[in-house]
């Protein structure tokens, strides 16, 4: 099976035109804004380019401290979130749960991902603070501080682990059982099989999930803003404060640029790790399913218990939210009321519609874009492939605030005046939130034998047809992951959005944030509940539509909402 064939770009019109379009888009929506930002960051007051500002920023021990904190937080969140996602993926894919339970877990675990800005953080504050519902009311611990590293890391892990779960589940599902069986038959214990087969074969997924989580945590300013307290400054928050507090755009931009370094290192490490090894487990020969129980009953119980507890906690957070949306004033006046919903459906009607329109446009575009980039990067050989791959990650790895500002700088003036339009929001979403889809696709393609695509080509199918009929269905779970995350982010993004919304285009999340700062917890909670409901309904419908589409062709691949 000499399978790693070189495909020449030159003779494939579909491919080369796609590539050209992609580069133009990336140049315009990723490189150009960042260039504008960098120019700003590295220009001195006298208007000349200089590294002086950077050195100044680096010379500040507080910044170095914050940088270290950011790395620590990102590493912990990356590892913790990836592992937690992996545990869930194991429970869903290896513990023989009934499809119904898998679906329940799936559904609840999407919640943190959907969580509109700050919900998890606020819920943690209310639950674990000095008068927290759990720490004080339940456990009687008073004066417990919910601020600091632990709670920040916990909140981020809970918020981001679904990404890891969504990336890893299809990976686990695609591991050929005969690999594990072969190891078993040689007398390996379950633990050993897990260690030497399941885990390494899931490596592309694990590394990609880690990369996603690491970068996400590195760029997250909202959670630390609320939870980190004063002992634990991190770079994105510092950058945010620099810009919105000191109005020092240059300083903020420089801090943000620093964040690219660790993200890049992680990217290259994961690439190096995966290079030269093969993870193909979906070969040209279909394997029979197997009755072997991969997970020992005791471990299975343990895992399920663990997941159930965490799932229960997530559920509790959101019940808290639901409760807050149904009372006059959370914690003060528990009278039941629908007034909050009334408010959002009258005052908020316009933002709901705006948000939905933008999400409806950004989701399919972003999903396809992610899929396509993932495919090109994993399957095609062309000059500048790695540069392209890195470029697609840039907007993701930078704090949203920075991206927002960069877009504002780049697209505020003619000739490319896009500010004030929906277009700028859509573009921002597509190029900022598709890396999940990209990484998931890349990881999954690592497992699929290229001979399947070759077979299609030999049967006369063009590259585009091969892509649509063979590649796409095979990476459908990753596509779903990308699509789902894209939609969820379009519904809930805040950091970049703050700078891109306009009088014509305002979004739900901005309203939620606003409500929070206005101390209007009720409407904020009601909006959040609305977002959650909308996301679920839409994902469910999409999943169902696509599922029925696939059963016509006799597909068998799981989707984002289970079974």
């Amino acid at each position: 099976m000499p399978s790693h064939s070189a495909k020449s770009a030159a003779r494939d019109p579909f491919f080369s035109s796609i590539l050209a379009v992609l580069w133009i888009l990336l140049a315009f929506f990723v490189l150009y804004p960042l260039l504008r930002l960098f120019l700003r960051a590295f220009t001195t007051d006298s208007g000349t380019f200089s590294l002086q500002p950077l050195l100044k920023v680096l010379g500040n021990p507080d910044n170095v401290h914050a940088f270290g904190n950011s790395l620590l937080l990102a590493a912990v969140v990356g590892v913790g979130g990836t592992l937690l996602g992996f545990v869930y993926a194991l429970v869903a894919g290896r513990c023989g749960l009934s499809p119904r339970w898998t679906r329940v877990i799936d559904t609840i675990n999407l919640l943190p991902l959907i969580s509109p800005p700050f919900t998890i953080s606020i819920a943690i504050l209310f639950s674990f603070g000095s008068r927290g519902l759990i720490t004080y009311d339940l456990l009687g611990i008073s004066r417990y501080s919910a601020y600091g590293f632990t709670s920040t890391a916990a909140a981020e892990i809970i918020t981001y682990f679904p990404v890891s779960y969504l990336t890893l589940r299809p990976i686990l599902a695609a591991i050929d059982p005969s690999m594990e069986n072969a190891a078993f038959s040689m007398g390996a214990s379950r633990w050993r099989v897990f260690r030497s087969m399941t885990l390494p074969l899931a490596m592309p997924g694990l590394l990609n999930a880690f990369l996603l989580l690491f970068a996400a945590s590195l760029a997250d300013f909202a959670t630390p803003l609320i939870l980190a307290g004063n002992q634990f400054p991190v770079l994105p928050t510092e950058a945010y404060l620099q810009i919105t507090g000191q109005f020092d755009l240059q300083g903020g931009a420089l801090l943000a640029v620093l964040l690219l370094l660790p993200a890049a290192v992680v990217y290259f490490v994961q690439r190096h790790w995966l290079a030269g090894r093969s993870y193909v487990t979906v070969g040209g020969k279909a394997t029979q399913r197997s009755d072997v129980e991969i997970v020992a009953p005791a471990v299975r119980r343990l895992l399920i218990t663990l997941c159930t507890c965490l799932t229960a906690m997530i559920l509790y957070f959101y019940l808290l939210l639901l409760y807050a949306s149904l009372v006059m004033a959370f914690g003060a006046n528990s009278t039941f009321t629908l007034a909050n919903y009334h408010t959002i459906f009258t005052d908020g009607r316009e933002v709901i519609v705006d948000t939905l329109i933008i999400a409806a446009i950004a989701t399919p575009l972003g999903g396809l874009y992610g899929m396509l980039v993932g495919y090109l990067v994993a399957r095609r050989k062309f000059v500048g492939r790695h540069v392209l791959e890195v470029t697609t990650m840039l907007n993701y790895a930078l704090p949203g605030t920075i991206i927002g500002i960069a877009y504002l700088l780049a697209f505020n003036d003619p000739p490319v005046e896009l500010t004030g339009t929906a277009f700028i929001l859509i573009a921002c979403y597509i190029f900022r939130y598709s890396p999940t889809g990209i990484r998931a696709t890349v990881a999954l393609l690592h497992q699929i034998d290229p001979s399947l695509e070759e077979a299609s080509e030999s049967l006369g199918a063009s590259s585009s047809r091969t892509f649509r009929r063979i590649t796409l269905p095979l990476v459908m779970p990753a596509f779903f992951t990308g699509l789902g995350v894209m939609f969820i982010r379009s519904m809930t993004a805040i950091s970049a959005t703050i700078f891109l919304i306009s009088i014509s285009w305002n979004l739900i999340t901005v309203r939620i944030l606003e409500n929070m700062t206005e101390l209007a917890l009720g409407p904020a909670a009601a909006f959040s509940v609305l977002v959650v409901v909308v996301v679920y309904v839409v994902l469910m419908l999409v999943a169902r539509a696509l599922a029925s589409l696939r059963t016509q062709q006799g597909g068998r691949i799981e989707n984002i909402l289970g079974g």
Partner: protein
Amino acid sequence: MASIPTPQPVPIRLEGIVKRFDHNVKGRIAAVDNVDISVAPGELLTLLGPSGCGKTTTLRMIAGFEHPTEGSIFIGDHDVTRLRANERNIGFVFQNYAIFPHLSVFENVAYGLRVQGRPEAEIRSAVEQVLDLVGLGGYGTQQPHQLSGGEQQRIALARAIVFQPRILMFDEPLSNLDAKLRGQMRGEIRELQKRLGITTVYVTHDQEEAMAISDRIAVMNHGSVVQIDTAEALYARPCNAFMANFIGKSNLLPGQVLQADARGAQVRVLDQTLQCLQAAPEVRAGDAVRVVVRPEQISLAPGGGPGSASVISRTFLGEKTEYQVQAGTATLHAVAYGAGASARLAEGQAVQVVLPAEGNAIIRD
């Protein structure tokens, strides 16, 4: 290979094994249907049968990858029906190889030894030895995706035999190798298996391979075992038409029993009287039966005359030449070996057909 004390050979016994699958059109089908097989300690038993007859499924159940819908499996004295695969200590060569894609060739082969916690030096020498054995010395650091189909198959083979399991299972381990290598490999497998006394179940679709390697052969069809016996017995006394045609080629010539007793029967076939072995249940004078005549037992001599036949087609196959011959209403398959006169008959030529006078099998279905 590794020099641990050879374990005591164990018997395997399948009792009333049934495995059902859902078939989209045919409903619930029995891929394996009420199979009883006993493999003696140290024996090499081959499962032979047409594609889709249930060989792999049977093997997978013995190895513990699949649970039987009904029936029990014993290894030694233990009922292992519900035992997990890694407690059965079985070396398994998968039909799809199941090479670990993320491990180098060396690590693939070393896996079983590492599981057993052998010292590094021993592992190294054992792996190198077995790689030499399968003709892949020096391939240790290659990655699986850099190997040809046959090379992958040999890695799968090496991986299963190197750790000297109590039981070996082979699922078409040589299907992607050329005749020469196949011959050589099956020799090695057989030698190793005999030397270590490892009870072995071997699946192949290749009759010749089955005959060359097996102590006994179980021929399966449609999920059931049709006949179990040594190669010579299966060849000499096929129990029905399927067997007659599946192990070697046969001409099934209709005939009339002239006279019969416990030891044998005389049957009139194509105007010749043949001495035949008695069938079970016994045939009696007057019965209409079919006589199994192997193509290589038919002599063809050029020349016409009364009762002569004519050559319909001729296929040259190197060491032998195959003919189809029209004799009356019957079409006979015959084979001539070497380059003698009977190997140079032309299509359309008239020939004399001589059937073997004795030792023929009768079938009565």
